[in-house]
């Protein structure tokens, strides 16, 4: 048998030699509620997150409509605060992160040749906690108390003295719950990638998307604790009367200002120690997606694979050492500003390496500009624009001019929309055949791309000018005769066009699901393992566990016989920079791989073992939700001993404990 289990081109389950595992009812509402299948969880993540992307988009359209005219009163300034806060929070935590999660869930086990993730029930738990976290944030609209303090929630604006309503509580508790989901999911993916690779898939043979998923997961696990603690301290300030972020209070009784000893800058430090790695949590999966797509449509292996891996790891590592560049104007002094300016500019080096590698991959390739390739190349160009304005902000004197202006808004939309969203759309077009079995329509796809690309630039490029002309970030109005209206109008018109582009996309998805071309196993002539199996994949993914002998296993499988014709190049496990060897991979033992192959073949004699569906992840997640909900709606209360607990919190803790015990005592499979 060749190095991958199922040669491409063979259609569907006909090639499977095993009895299909007994699947009871596997359609219907409850099967989705209790599912532990990574592919279904991936789809759930994708659908939920896309809904939030639309909500976040509508919030953005409200913002743009408010700013289309000077002194506009479409929404009140108080509501405007809620719209921009929820736009940022929704897009970051409820749209881009979970959309990346959708790809992690669906694609990673397929790329590494696994039948599921390491902890299927933990995976379901992550989804449900994410779902409930999003619900908490969304409920704030119904309670007429949407968060109103900006997505990075600077103290003391978040403190009771300045923000008496429940707005901040919804935000703090919602993010706290979402953090649990992110950490649980990331732990799962770290273990899955480290431990469930197919035989022969060494670390340096993993597809680049798998690498960026691993590194992103490590970032989440190490960065989220900082915001968890920051939010916990904020909640203590709001619920328990501490003053972690409160320097002074006004004492009504004595009519005097009294020192409390807290420090609002502590919030900024803790928040940005999380917040800067968060930027890479949003962009690294996008880089991974693009690194999968560009080689396939350039008909060349990725240029400088090993350096690409090291660059990803370097970006992640440096990402923990640059947070003060968000705080240049807080007056920390010249020394910290200089140190963090240097570390910030240093990050441009590995990022530039990536840009170079993508262009070098395309250089001399047989370029095929399908929709995924168009979105990927657009990422490369648009991210460079956002990246360069990022380097400008890395300089403290320039930053103090740009800080809190629309120039910054332009910058992070170029990296988040021009980077993350473009890549997520590219990934959707690229993997949609694998999700659904059908291709997205290419003609509509190209329309979608060009409208998105144009609208994106019309919306966000003028924001550079607005910023330099003095338009401050987060202002819901501007004066007549300020000279700002022209670019605001251009930007707003662009945003409507951008909204329209998503209608094209949704139309494309709806039409293609019904009438799209059948995809087959491998519609793009791909290089990685997910293209060796049917589309959509069977519930067990791989009938036979594949054995990997090359970095691009499917290309090796398909093209090794044409050796010398330039396709599957000889894999080198040495890493060189400018001709100097800097690393050497370990060549796996051929005997061991043959043993693994024999073992995989022997495995087929038995039925494939699949985890059972389970209610417990949902129950446990429901407990988390109730506990958090009780802290926001703190009445009615019930006294338990010396404690006076909110009813919902007490009930939630009980459900949580029941869920954990039910879960750990239930057999996994």
């Amino acid at each position, binding site marked *: 048998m060749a190095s991958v289990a199922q040669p491409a081109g063979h259609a569907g389950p006909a090639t499977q030699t095993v009895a299909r595992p007994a699947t009871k009812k596997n359609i219907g509402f409850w099967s989705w509620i209790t599912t532990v299948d990574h592919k279904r969880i991936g789809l759930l993540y994708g659908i939920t997150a896309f809904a939030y992307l639309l909500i976040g988009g509508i919030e953005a359209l409200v913002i743009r409509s408010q700013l289309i005219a000077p002194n506009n009163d479409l929404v009140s300034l108080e509501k405007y605060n809620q719209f921009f806060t929820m736009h940022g929070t929704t897009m970051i935590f409820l749209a881009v992160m979970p959309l990346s999660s959708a790809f992690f869930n669906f694609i990673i086990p397929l790329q590494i040749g696994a039948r599921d993730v390491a902890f299927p029930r933990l995976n379901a738990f992550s989804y449900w906690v994410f779902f409930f976290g999003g619900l908490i944030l969304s409920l704030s609209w119904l309670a007429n108390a949407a968060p109103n303090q900006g997505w990075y929630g600077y103290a003391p604006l978040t403190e009771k003295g300045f923000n008496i309503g429940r707005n901040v509580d919804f935000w703090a508790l919602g993010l706290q719950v979402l953090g649990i989901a992110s950490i649980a999911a990331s732990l799962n993916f770290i273990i899955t990638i480290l431990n469930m690779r197919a035989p022969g898939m060494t670390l340096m043979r993993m597809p680049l998307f798998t690498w960026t998923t691993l590194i992103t997961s490590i970032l989440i696990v190490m960065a989220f604790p900082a915001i968890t603690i920051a939010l916990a301290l904020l909640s203590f300030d709001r619920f328990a009367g501490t003053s972690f972020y409160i320097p002074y209070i006004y004492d009504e009784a004595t009519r005097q200002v009294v020192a409390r000893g807290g420090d609002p800058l502590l919030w900024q430090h803790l928040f940005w120690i999380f917040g800067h790695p968060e930027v890479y949590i949003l962009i690294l999966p996008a880089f991974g997606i693009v690194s999968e797509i560009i080689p396939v449509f350039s008909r060349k292996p990725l240029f400088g694979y090993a350096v690409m891996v090291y660059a990803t790891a370097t970006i992640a590592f440096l990402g923990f050492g640059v947070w003060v560049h968000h705080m240049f104007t807080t007056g920390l002094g010249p020394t910290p500003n200089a140190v963090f300016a240097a570390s910030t500019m240093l990050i441009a080096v590995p990022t530039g390496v990536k840009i170079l590698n993508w262009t070098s991959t395309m250089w001399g390739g047989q370029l095929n500009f399908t929709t995924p390739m168009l979105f990927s190349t657009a990422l490369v160009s648009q991210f460079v624009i956002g990246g360069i304005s990022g380097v400008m902000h890395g300089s403290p004197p320039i930053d103090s001019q740009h800080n809190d202006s629309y120039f910054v808004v332009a910058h992070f939309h170029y990296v988040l929309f021009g980077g993350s969203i473009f890549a997520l759309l590219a990934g959707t077009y690229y993997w949609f055949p694998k999700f659904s079995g059908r291709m997205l329509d290419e003609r509509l796809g190209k329309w979608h791309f060009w409208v998105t690309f144009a609208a994106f630039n019309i919306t966000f490029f003028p924001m550079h000018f607005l910023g330099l002309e003095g338009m401050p970030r987060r202002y819901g109005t501007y004066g007549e005769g300020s000279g700002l209206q022209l670019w605001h109008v251009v930007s707003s018109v662009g945003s409507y066009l951008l909204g329209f582009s998503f209608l094209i996309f949704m139309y494309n998805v709806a039409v293609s699901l019904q009438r799209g071309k059948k995809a087959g196993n491998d519609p793009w002539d791909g290089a990685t393992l997910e293209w060796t199996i049917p589309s959509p994949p069977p519930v067990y993914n791989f009938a036979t566990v594949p054995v990997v002998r090359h970095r691009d296993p499917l290309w090796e499988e398909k093209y090794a016989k044409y050796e010398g014709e330039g396709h599957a190049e000889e894999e080198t496990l040495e890493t060189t920079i400018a001709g100097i060897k800097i690393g050497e991979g370990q060549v796996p033992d051929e005997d061991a791989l043959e043993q693994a192959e024999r073992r995989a073949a022997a495995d087929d004699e038995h039925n494939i073992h699949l985890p059972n569906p389970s209610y417990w992840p949902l129950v446990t997640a429901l407990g988390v939700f109730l506990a958090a909900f009780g802290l926001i709606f703190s009445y009615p209360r019930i006294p338990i001993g010396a404690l006076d607990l909110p009813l919902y919190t007490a009930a939630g803790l009980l459900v949580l404990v029941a869920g954990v015990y039910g879960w*750990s005592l239930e057999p*996994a499979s």
Partner: protein
Amino acid sequence: MATAVELERAHGAGHGDDHGHADHPPTSTGLDHRKLLMWAFLASDCMFFGSLIATYMIYRGRAEDLGFAPFPSEILDIPYTSLSAFVLLMSSLTMVLALAAIQKGDHRGLRIWLAATALLGAIFLGGQYFEFTEFYHEGLSLQTNMFGASFFVLTGFHGAHVTIGVIWLLTLLFLSLRGGVKQEDSLDVELAGLYWHFVDIVWIVIFTLVYLIPYDEVTETQTGAFTYLAGILRGVASIF
């Protein structure tokens, strides 16, 4: 990576999902999924405690600076807490003995040492409860000053960890009494042990930074630009 030896070992160590089954596929690293998960979780937990300890270090001495009594130097009872720290550290020894017992198939030994570990943990928690009550009566609460806030939150967070650990140990003890912990399930005990030792190690750090280092050395108001960074670095470095 995948040398012959490692692939073979991986096949031998084929414990899979939440409960080990012999027919699960081998793992790429040769380590059990759950063990790797626990290590990764503890790395994350380091960052939780790191953030809290950094917060404590930043506000350390601020009660004296502002003259808000009670001060840590007059309220902390080092001999008393040394005793409860000693109790907690000894529980790591009994935890090791519990794991050693089940690995040898000694179920009686497992139960004795699990019970002993849970009991020592419970004594530590009782000591903490008494200490908190005592401080409260001496006028230190969450709201009193920055020392009260950061002290109670940090040590309370650690206490919550110990509480979860005690419940976990008691659950294992209960399962063992019903015959649910077999010799080949020793990983169940090992995971609880990893968590327990981690919580003990964190207490060594907290005990040193909160109790042992004298407070009168930090009298000057720390307003320097690097205070935060230094505090955070000290906090993080202290974990390792």
